[in-house]
């Protein structure tokens, strides 16, 4: 037995070294050996060689841009990552069908990061091995901070659809499609005070989440200036997000007329149900994470009646672009898209616009493309489904107008 163990461990160790060597020897094939999508592999590996030197293998003169996407596809945050990747895929398919970017096709690769910075860096490295030239990601904030740092070292251009923390954009090469958290907090306070919705505010937020506590911090800071009194500030955490009765009870006892909820609709749907059960009916006010609440399967939309949210995207907006996107999404994935999907959809088109403006080609190096896009994105103006007249500051922050939405008769409706 002992002897056998030794043999096994020696064998395993040598196998390990061999496996690493194998992965190293032919990076693309090694990491994708098990992939069933053999045909896409061929393109990826040709691209991997293509981006370092002249592009001779792809056949078409314009070549192929390889855009990578990173987000949580499994784990507790999987809803957001999958939505974003689906949205991006629709944009990529549309662009490719319409002839690509300056004639170059887009190849979109997605990798899972399980909403963890370390796994996210692994995903980034894996995509790099597969020939990624531009990163559309990551979907969530904390992993994005880690990845942005590695991408900065490589000079890669990063456009995150939905990582909204300000820590994400400290590096020059990172830009956001979504609002920053402080921006959302400030805009919410401003809106509530301008429209005189209420003066006594209760807040419920996720104290273990970067997004939620980031918005809450600025909201609390802005509130006094806007004449809002915060009467209750109650937290929950990722480990106890089933019961919100206490937080609601405290808001009610403190006489809050409006409950500000800077978190996602999964938890919000429980909050609304519990508030309804206890007969507490303040104005509920959410931010962009709230979008999607009506499309949660089997959700009783009556509970969300009168819910305000400040979001850049509404799935039932009537403009042609949104209708086209929502239709395509429903056709491909059988669901109504949430804001993450829309952000990623826009992100791909923004990358397209920037590439066209900068006139980069797929045969340029990662850094050349990165530098060119970083300097041109600040000059473009983009009209998307998550906002019109979007422009970018060199800091990476987007400037666009948020939309206030209220839920009326079980549907989203814009309010001015």
């Amino acid at each position, binding site marked *: 037995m002992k*002897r*056998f163990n030794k043999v096994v461990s020696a064998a395993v160790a040598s196998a390990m070294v061999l496996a690493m060597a194998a*992965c190293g020897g032919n990076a693309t094939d090694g990491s994708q050996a098990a992939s069933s999508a053999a045909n896409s592999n061929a393109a990826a590996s040709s691209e991997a060689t293509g981006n370092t030197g002249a592009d001779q293998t792809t056949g078409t003169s314009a070549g192929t841009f390889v855009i990578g996407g990173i987000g949580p596809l499994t784990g507790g945050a999987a809803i957001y990552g999958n939505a974003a990747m689906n949205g991006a895929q629709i944009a990529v398919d549309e662009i490719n069908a319409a002839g690509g970017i300056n004639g170059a096709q887009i190849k979109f690769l997605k990798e899972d990061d399980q909403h963890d910075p370390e796994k996210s860096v*692994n995903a980034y490295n894996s995509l790099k091995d597969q020939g990624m030239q531009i990163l559309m990601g990551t979907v969530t904030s904390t992993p994005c901070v880690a990845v942005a740092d590695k991408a900065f070292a490589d000079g890669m251009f990063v456009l995150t659809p939905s990582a909204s923390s300000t820590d994400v954009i400290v590096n020059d090469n990172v830009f956001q499609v979504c609002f920053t958290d402080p921006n959302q907090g400030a805009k919410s306070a401003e809106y509530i005070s301008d429209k005189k919705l209420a003066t006594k505010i209760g807040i419920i937020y996720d*104290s273990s989440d970067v997004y939620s506590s980031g918005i809450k911090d600025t909201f*609390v800071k802005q509130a006094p200036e806007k004449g809002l009194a915060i009467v209750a500030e109650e937290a929950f955490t990722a480990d106890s997000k089933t019961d919100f009765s206490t937080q609601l009870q405290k808001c009610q006892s403190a006489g809050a007329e409006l409950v500000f909820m800077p978190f996602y609709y999964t938890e919000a749907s429980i909050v609304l149900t519990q508030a309804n059960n206890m007969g507490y009916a303040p104005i509920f006010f959410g931010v962009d994470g709230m979008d999607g609440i009506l499309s949660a399967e089997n959700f009783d939309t009556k509970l969300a009646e009168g819910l305000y949210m400040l979001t850049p995207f509404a799935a039932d907006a009537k403009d042609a672009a949104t209708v086209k996107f929502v239709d395509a999404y429903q056709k491909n994935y059988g669901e109504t898209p949430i804001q993450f999907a829309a952000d990623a959809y826009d992100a791909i088109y923004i990358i397209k616009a920037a590439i066209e403006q900068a006139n980069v080609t797929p045969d340029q190096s990662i850094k050349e493309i990165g530098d060119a896009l970083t300097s041109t994105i600040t000059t473009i103006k983009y009209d998307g489904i998550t906002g019109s007249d979007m422009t970018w500051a060199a800091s990476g922050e987007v400037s666009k107008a948020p939309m206030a939405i209220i839920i009326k008769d079980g549907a989203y409706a814009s309010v001015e």
Partner: protein
Amino acid sequence: MAKLNLKSIKKSSKDAFITYALVILVYIVMQILLKGGHVSSLIQGLLVPMCVYSLVAIGLNLCVGYLGELSLGHAGFMCVGAFTGAFVSKALRDSVQSNLLLFMIALIAGVVMASVFGFLIAVPVLRLKGDYLAIVTLAFGEIIKNIVNVLYVARDDNGYHFAFSDTKKMNFDDSNGIWLINGAKGINRIPNLSNFTIGIVLILIALIIVYNLVNSRSGRAIMAIRDNHIAADSVGINITKYKLMAFTISAAIAGAGGVLYAHNLSTVTATPTNFGYNMSIMILVFVVLGGMGSLRGSVIAAVLLTLLPEVLRGLKDYRMLIYSIVLIVMMLFNWAPKSIEMRKRLAEKFVKKNPTKEEA
């Protein structure tokens, strides 16, 4: 000749030397491959995490395999090490120029802090046994994670500002100072000081410490407590002392893993995935799969299981599903009495056929 030499050394030290040799061999091979540019970015990026998990697994093995106490809180010690280390290196970044020196300071701070926590937790925990002990360590790990999430430290011209859960009391404006620990946002912009060489050196140090400990008088006392604490007590072994010792060292090694972890990524936050019970359990998986009381096994299991989900990336959506199946199958293969029997039979055949192979 080599055969003779190996046989004349004590079995326990032989075991240790094989492990050291294996680690050094892997290091040399990897260095050669790295120099030759044969290593993909993915594997390069995984080198430090593999060292991190090997380290923590070595630490936990001391606690579970040798001391025989089930801990589900080692991610908590990692967390303490990571936050202390990252805090120190970020705070001293401007005053210490040398990267190595900065890392050493951070490492010492992280290890000391983790051992202090290990010691403090070990004192009450020693009264408990088995699953009750497991749940109390899990509870401590969760408490650490929860507290780190409401901890705020900032620095400006007026010095350091601290707050616990309420930032309004801090009198700090982020326009003229920096956040060191910012609640749920954790620590950002941590200097990137970890590398593969440091990781391997730390693993070797941890291995040397643990091997020497378990092969010493103290180590035999620790294992005597595991095998039968009443008998150990009756022959005059100071149970409390040795339990404390093993648990504290175990926590310290986990803390070192945390420091290495924090300096590999530019951000560290305490989330359920990295410092929650999920991570504690994952480390336990390395230890159990590798074999309790086998440090070499822990390292190999940690490396394999860190590598596995990454090399499975090609499977796309099925990746984590296949990973879980592989995990179950490996557990059954390693631990099921029937499979052990079958392996024994196979091994006998194998050994008969290749009588020299066994010394490899």
